């Protein structure tokens, strides 16, 4: 009988350890690199821990949290009201944790003469009121408008911060499936304008000043750059103090975590909560 109990205890213990040591993340392609770097760091620190990170878009991340197929949902935007409502109905309590800040630089081809635009000008370009670069101080060249697809948190943020609720993106706008694809399209196309996460913008494209302010770490932290956003990890309920989930999210506030975030190209959160 004691033997049996011992075996049962062992099995139970193993099962618990397994549940503890496995972590599944899903969601935004923008937050994905951060989550992956955190996962690598955690797995190096404590071998035996198994973390999988999927990047299927913020919408899918919220869906995964709703359906209970992930422990942490990465979102590059706030939860939508419909999503919040669906979660309430299913008994899921979403708790948000800010892990980094991101800005959406508006990017153009390096050869473009335009140095900066105002938010209103960008809105007019995206809604199709301005169709030529000469109207905003550039060459006589038609503007190729490139957006992220409507499935992405990047799109939601851009829409919310730049276009506003009512405005509709002009029907000739191209939609690209990832941040990398937007950069690829912009760096190849002379008349293009696009937007992508701060971490994806390099010297192959030119980031515009918005209302005279260039996107960089300082302007994002002091919130003077207008198109910036928080990057979230959502959990179902507040994670227990020493659980893997809590530890994982807390990385973002450690020195190492802040280093990782900065290296990927985002702006880290402050150490204090």
């Amino acid at each position: 009988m004691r033997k049996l109990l011992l075996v049962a205890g062992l099995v139970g213990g193993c099962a618990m350890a397994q549940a503890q040591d496995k972590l599944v993340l899903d969601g935004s392609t923008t937050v994905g690199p951060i989550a992956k770097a955190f996962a690598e760091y955690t797995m190096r620190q404590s071998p035996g821990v198994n973390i999988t990170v999927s990047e299927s878009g913020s919408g899918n991340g919220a869906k995964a949290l709703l359906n209970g197929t992930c422990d942490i949902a990465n979102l590059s935007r706030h939860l939508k009201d419909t999503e919040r409502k669906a979660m309430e109905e299913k008994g899921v309590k979403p708790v948000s944790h800010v892990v980094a800040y991101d800005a959406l630089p508006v990017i153009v081809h390096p050869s473009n003469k335009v140095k900066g635009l105002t938010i209103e000008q960008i809105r007019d370009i995206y809604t199709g009121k301005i169709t030529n670069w000469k109207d905003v101080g550039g060459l006589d060249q038609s503007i190729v408008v490139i957006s992220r697809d409507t499935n992405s948190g990047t799109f939601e943020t851009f829409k919310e911060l730049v276009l506003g609720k009512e405005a509709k993106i002009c029907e000739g706008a191209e939609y690209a499936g990832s941040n990398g694809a937007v950069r690829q399209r912009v760096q190849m196309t002379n008349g293009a304008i696009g937007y992508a996460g701060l971490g994806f913008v390099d010297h192959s494209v030119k980031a515009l000043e918005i209302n005279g302010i260039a996107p960089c770490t300082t302007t994002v932290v002091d919130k003077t750059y207008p198109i910036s956003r928080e990057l979230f990890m959502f959990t179902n309920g507040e994670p227990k103090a020493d659980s893997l989930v809590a530890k994982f999210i807390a990385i973002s506030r450690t020195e190492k975590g802040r280093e990782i975030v900065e290296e990927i190209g985002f702006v880290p959160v402050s150490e204090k909560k």
Partner: protein
Amino acid sequence: MNTGEHIILSAGEKTRRRIFGLVGRSFLFAVTSVAALAVLAIIFFIARDALPFFHEKGVAAFFFSKAWYPAQSPPQFGAAAIFAGSLLVTAAAVVLVVPPGVCAALCMSDILPFNVRQVLKPVIEMLAAIPSVAYGFFALVVLAPLLQNAGGRVLSVAWWVLALPMLALGSVVAADLLSSQRLSETSYRLVRGLLTFLFLALSLVLIVQTGNRLGALQISSGVNALNAAIILGVMALPTIVSVSEDALQAAGRELREGSYALGATRAETLVKVVVPAAISGIFSAILLGVMRALGETMVVWMASGNAAQIPKPWYNLLQPVRTLTATIAGDMGEADQMTGSAHYHVLFAMGLSLLIFSFFCNLAGEWIVARQRKRLRGG
């Protein structure tokens, strides 16, 4: 030796065998039905999720409005522009690829030496083995910048390379067909020579004119309907070439020999005898190509630009368009049953439309083949 007892079965043995036969046959029937049932099940489940959309938003708004704003509040789901995009890309791919495809099939079956055909056909069929995402990557990274930076030149070179041999060949064949053999030998040669010259001159004018016009084009964005159509055309090419070539081969040697025996020239044999005999096969090849192009997702998602608009003018291939398949693939993540039900169901409505369209394509193909078979039998 008397073998009678082995042949004549007892009554019990007879029933047993009959039952076994019945069981075996019904098992085979069930296995065969699986495919048909799978199709029916697919139609059922897609229709089940598509119909709520029509209930909620109405049929007219779906087919006739071109306001596609799924992320707006309230969202608008007019799919007219997306239908137009799918049709435009598919039609352009077919127009681009059918003439060279059918010509290639004719060349392989009737003109090129057998050895060359044996090498060429597998090579063309290999195009079908390339994964579509590789095609899409090529479209995005190679073809799109090429079209943007040197679009006009690239198009005019492509036009010359494709049109010159095809129109030259066409001129020779047309002249051959038009000159009557009832004339005397010398005047027949004269007429044929003159006609050939005339047609060649006309095609040259056409080629130079169109080439110049294409050469002057400026393409502002390389991901557009043309890019997608070119890649879809290349993807449909192996199907069209291979199936048409099979059909032309199936027309038979006797038919060709009979035609030559009656004094027909090679051009007459090809155009008036072989092609009509194989026309149903060529039609099914084209229909297969259409369905390949219509159903392709990855390439159009990467190469077409995904702008939900009807190009102005409608045949302007240089503007980005959005197709049904790319919309389904791209929007599925956002469109959840829980979060945005109309957005979820509209994608199924699109899937259902695609399904119905290819169903009718298939049906038309079957009908053409059946009619042709009847005609060939002399019915």
